[in-house]
């Protein structure tokens, strides 16, 4: 996003307009931070501070007991490990497959409009439409409740993202270097792997981060396709919904544990945010 100031056409900026702007901005900042603050604070509150009116804004005796309970008694640790493994593997797979397809689409216009549209439309496919057959198919392939199964499912889910982000990058890349490589006797694959990809590396990295975040935060597939072994962090929150509604601390501790990596990663790819959100359609 360019940092040039943009005037909106008013002659000078009136005090009222400025106040209005900062009011809106200020409201939003508070709006964004309020629930997050509450979650983090609840995660360090002792249980006796839950059922109070007025609410305790900051505990007198903060504690990390909920973190240990969440990680060890509620199998938060296993969920965390699963999430890390699954998200990483899916990211690698999705980036590789996606970059390959994107290159082909960008350079050769493979499959024309139809292939491109088909891949893009997968982005909007409601998971609920395919979840049952996938559930049944996973069962017969022995992939139910396995990390491998989820990895494949997530790779599929994030392919549109990978493909389209890289497509935009490759289209911007001048062909001259690849052509030179071909003239030098490199095969197409080598031209791709050794010339194009390194040049597009920032794009690949950015796409990979978006894929990681998408998989890290996904709930629906994990809810239905996992059970005892391969469950991910988001599915654990389900356990806090039930009869014993009192484990606010553990739920918030898990939430904070899940939030931290994805927010940090998000900050890293801030510059590419618009591209990621719009699948490369916009450059921001």
């Amino acid at each position: 996003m360019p940092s040039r100031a943009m005037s909106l056409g008013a002659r000078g900026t009136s005090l009222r307009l400025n106040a209005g702007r900062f009011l809106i901005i200020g409201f939003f900042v508070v709006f964004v931070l309020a629930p997050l603050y509450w979650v983090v604070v609840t995660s360090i509150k002792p249980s006796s501070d839950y059922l109070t009116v007025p609410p305790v804004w900051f505990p007198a005796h903060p504690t990390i007991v909920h973190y240990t309970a969440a990680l060890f008694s509620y199998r938060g640790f296993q969920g965390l490990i699963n999430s890390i493994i699954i998200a990483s593997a899916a990211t690698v797979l999705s980036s590789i497959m996606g970059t390959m397809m994107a290159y082909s689409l960008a350079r050769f216009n493979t499959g024309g409009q139809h292939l491109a549209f088909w891949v893009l439309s997968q982005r909007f496919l409601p998971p609920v439409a395919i979840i049952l057959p996938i559930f049944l198919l996973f069962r017969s392939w022995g992939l139910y409740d396995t990390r491998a199964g989820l990895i494949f499912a997530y790779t599929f889910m994030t392919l549109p993202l990978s493909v389209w982000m890289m497509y935009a990058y490759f289209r911007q890349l001048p062909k001259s270097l690849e052509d030179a490589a071909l003239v030098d006797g490199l095969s197409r694959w080598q031209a791709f792997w050794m010339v194009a990809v390194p040049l597009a590396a920032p794009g690949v990295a950015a796409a990979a981060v978006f894929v990681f975040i998408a998989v890290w935060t996904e709930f629906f597939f994990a809810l239905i396709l996992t059970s005892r072994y391969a469950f991910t962090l988001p599915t654990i929150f389900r356990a806090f919904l039930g009869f014993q509604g009192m484990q606010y601390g553990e739920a918030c501790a898990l939430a904070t544990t899940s939030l931290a990596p994805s927010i940090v990663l998000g900050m890293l790819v801030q510059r590419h945010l618009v591209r990621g959100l719009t699948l490369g359609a916009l450059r921001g």
Partner: protein
Amino acid sequence: MTHSAAANLSPVSVGKRTAAVSAWADRHFKWLMVAPAALLILIFSIYPLLFSLWVDFVNYDFQIPGHAFVGLQNFVQVVNDPLAWSSLVLTAILSVTVVAIEFVLGLALALAMVKMFRGRGVVLSILIIPLFISPVIVGQSWALFLQRPFGPADYLLGQLLGRPVTISWVGEVPWAYIAIVVADVWQWTPFMFVILLAGLSAIPSHLYEAAELDGVRAAQTFRYVTLPQLAPIILLAITFRLLDAVKLFDVIFMLTGGGPGTATYTMSFYLYQIGFQQFHLSIATAGSWLFLILLSVVIMALVRRLMRAEAA
């Protein structure tokens, strides 16, 4: 070491074979490159859809043994279920509502933020945080925040309004709707904001300068300069957001559980409930197909338009 055995392994013949493979690979390069991804999509999209077509027409309910052919009965059950209709209607209304609100708020925020000020970078980083959070966590956080009677929301509102507020945000209509809208708006307004901000920043400044020279007032500049320039971007943002909003599930699941009663059942939640809580699998599949058909119409219309704009 016999000569004939070694001949097969000589560098020249190995080189010839690799060269042949290489040449073949080069000729079919573009197809080979799309093959892995296309295969995965086929396996996870086309194939399941075809399989589910079979499930649509048989009995697949765990309480009734066998998979007898039942014709259109599954579809009939879905169409006759008032809950299916209310879920569909709610999905439509909710998604349009949240997208509209997110658009307006996102635009307001973008307009406010487009001008440089000190600390803008930090503020920007804060404002985009919700985009990276799992929707279940969003639902959970708002459930806690809005909890009655120990959550801060009612208390703060009470302080603000000067009288006690005891709204049951997840247990009463229409507050449950408002809670869902608030949670979704919280998470996705930054989406609109970021895209619209990018669009605003890309508008060439000379257009504004010209308008200023002509003495055009701010409101009219906005209407006749800003909006038209922004139009394709608005279309993009709304398309993406709308097609995501109709899938609303995670927040419903964590915040209201579909309640009170069935007031906040969206299509995805309804199908999940029927399929994976009650295990009437064939009915759920029939419902998913109907939903998908309806959605495809919308997707076709919007996405094709988008692609045409993109190709330009």
